[in-house]
C-alpha cells in the first residue's frame, strides 16, 4: 500500500473488536467463546458485570487466564488452554455440555468466520471441499444451538476479499444462524432484510464500507 492510499480511518485491532463485543453482553448471560479471536472477549467484560462463560469440554464459570502459580494442569478450555474457575463454577461431561448448547440454554456464542452471508449463513470450518484435514469441532452445534450467534472477524481477508457476502462460497457451518457481526470496521446485525450497520469506525464512509462488503448494506 502506497502512502497516497493512506486510509482515513483506523481499523479496530483484535482487542478493540473484543472490547466492542464485550460491551454488548448483558449481565447474567451464559456465553460460549469460540477458539481464537472470540476468546479475547473474556478479557474485556467489565469486572462488575457477571457473565458466565461456558466451555464445550464441560465447564461453566471460567475465570481469568491463570498465572504460573495458580495454573491447574487439569483444567483447560475448548482451545486446550489452561483456565481458572470462578465461584459458582461447575464441571460436567460432554453430553451434558452439548445438551446446554443444543437445548438453547446458552444466550450467546461468539465464533470466528471465513464468510457470513446476508441471511446469516455461516462458513467457518473449512475453506474448501478438499481441505488439508477436515475438522469441525463444536461449531455446528454451537451455531444452531445458542440463542444469539455473534461473529468476530476481520471485515475482509488478508488479500482484501470481502467476508460478508450475499451467499457463502465455502462449505456452510450452519444456515441462517448468525445474528450479529463484529469486524475491525463495523458492527452489523443480520436482519430479515440483510446486513444492517449498527456502527462503524470513525473516518470510514458508508461508500468505503460498502466497497469492502459483497452484499448490500443498510443503516440503523
Amino acid at each position, binding site marked *: 500500500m502506497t502512502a497516497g492510499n493512506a486510509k482515513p480511518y483506523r481499523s479496530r485491532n483484535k482487542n478493540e473488536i473484543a472490547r466492542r463485543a464485550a460491551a454488548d453482553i448483558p449481565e447474567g448471560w451464559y456465553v460460549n467463546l469460540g477458539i481464537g479471536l472470540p476468546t479475547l472477549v473474556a478479557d474485556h467484560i467489565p469486572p462488575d458485570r457477571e457473565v458466565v462463560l461456558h466451555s464445550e469440554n464441560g465447564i461453566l464459570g471460567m475465570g481469568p*487466564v491463570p498465572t504460573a502459580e495458580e495454573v491447574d494442569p487439569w483444567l483447560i478450555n475448548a482451545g486446550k488452554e489452561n483456565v481458572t474457575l470462578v465461584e459458582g463454577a461447575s*464441571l460436567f*461431561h460432554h453430553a451434558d455440555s452439548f445438551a446446554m448448547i443444543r437445548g438453547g440454554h446458552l444466550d450467546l456464542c461468539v465464533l470466528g468466520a471465513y464468510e457470513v452471508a446476508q441471511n446469516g449463513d455461516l462458513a467457518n470450518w473449512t475453506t474448501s471441499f478438499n481441505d488439508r484435514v477436515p475438522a469441525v469441532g463444536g461449531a455446528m*452445534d454451537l451455531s444452531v444451538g445458542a440463542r444469539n450467534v455473534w461473529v468476530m472477524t476481520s471485515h475482509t481477508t488478508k488479500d482484501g476479499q470481502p467476508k460478508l457476502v450475499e451467499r457463502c462460497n465455502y462449505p456452510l457451518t450452519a444456515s441462517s444462524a448468525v445474528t450479529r457481526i463484529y469486524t475491525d470496521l463495523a458492527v452489523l446485525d443480520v436482519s430479515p432484510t440483510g446486513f444492517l450497520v449498527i456502527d462503524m469506525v470513525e473516518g470510514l464512509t458508508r461508500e468505503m464500507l460498502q466497497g469492502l462488503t459483497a452484499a448490500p448494506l443498510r443503516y440503523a
Partner: protein
Amino acid sequence: MIDKQVKDIAEALSGIANGASVLVGGFGAVGQPNALLDALGDSGLTDLTVIANNAGFEPDIGLGRLIGKGCVRKMICSFPRGSSTFDAAYKAGRIELEVVPQGTLAERIRAGGAGVPAFYTPAAVGTQLAEGRETRVIDGREYLLEYALTADIALVEAWRADRWGNLTYRGSGRNFNPIMAMAGRLTIVQAQHIVPLGAIRPDDVVTQGLFVNRVVHVPGGDPPVSRVATAEGGAK
C-alpha cells in the same frame, strides 16, 4: 467379592482383537488414557476403529502413538488437528476419517450407552456433512437423523476408582470419559487413585461401577501445562 482392579496394563488390555472399535476418552491433554493407549500401540494390533474427539497430539504419546504405529484403520472424531502422525497417515491414504460435529459425537455416544439407537439433531443440517442423509421436519424445523455409537472397547482415564469401578474425574478430565464408559462393551479404566469402597460418597460418583469392567492403577501425574498468564496480564 466384586473387584474390578486388575494387576497391570497387560491384563487390563487382554482380549482386544484386530479390527476392534475403541472409544478413547480425553479432550486436549486432560483425561487421556495415555498409559492404556501407549501399551495398545505397542501391542501390534491392526485395523482398529478409534472414536475420540481428537486424533492425538504428540507423536510418541497416546493416540498419536497408536496411529503412528499403524494400529488404526479408521478415525471417527470431531477435530483431528494437531497430530503429525494422523496427518501423515491421512495424506498417505492409510487411514479413513469420519468427521462428526462435537455435540453430535457426544450425543451419539451417550445414546449408545443409553440404549437409544437413533435420534434427531439440528446440528449439520444444510451442510456438506448432511449431504445425502435422512432428515425430518419436526414442528417446522429440519433435523438430521443420527445413529448411536457403541464400541467393543472404551478406554477411560479417571481420578479416583474403587473396587466396584465407581469413578470420579478431575477438573475438565470428565469430558467424553463418562459417556464413553457407558458405550463400551468392555470398559477399561486407568485411574490415578484407587480408594476403598465407600470413599467416594454416593452423591459424588460420576461413573457408576456397572459401566466399568476393568480398572488399572496408573498414578500418571499431571498433564502438561499449555498456557499461563504473562506478567503483562495476557496469555502466552
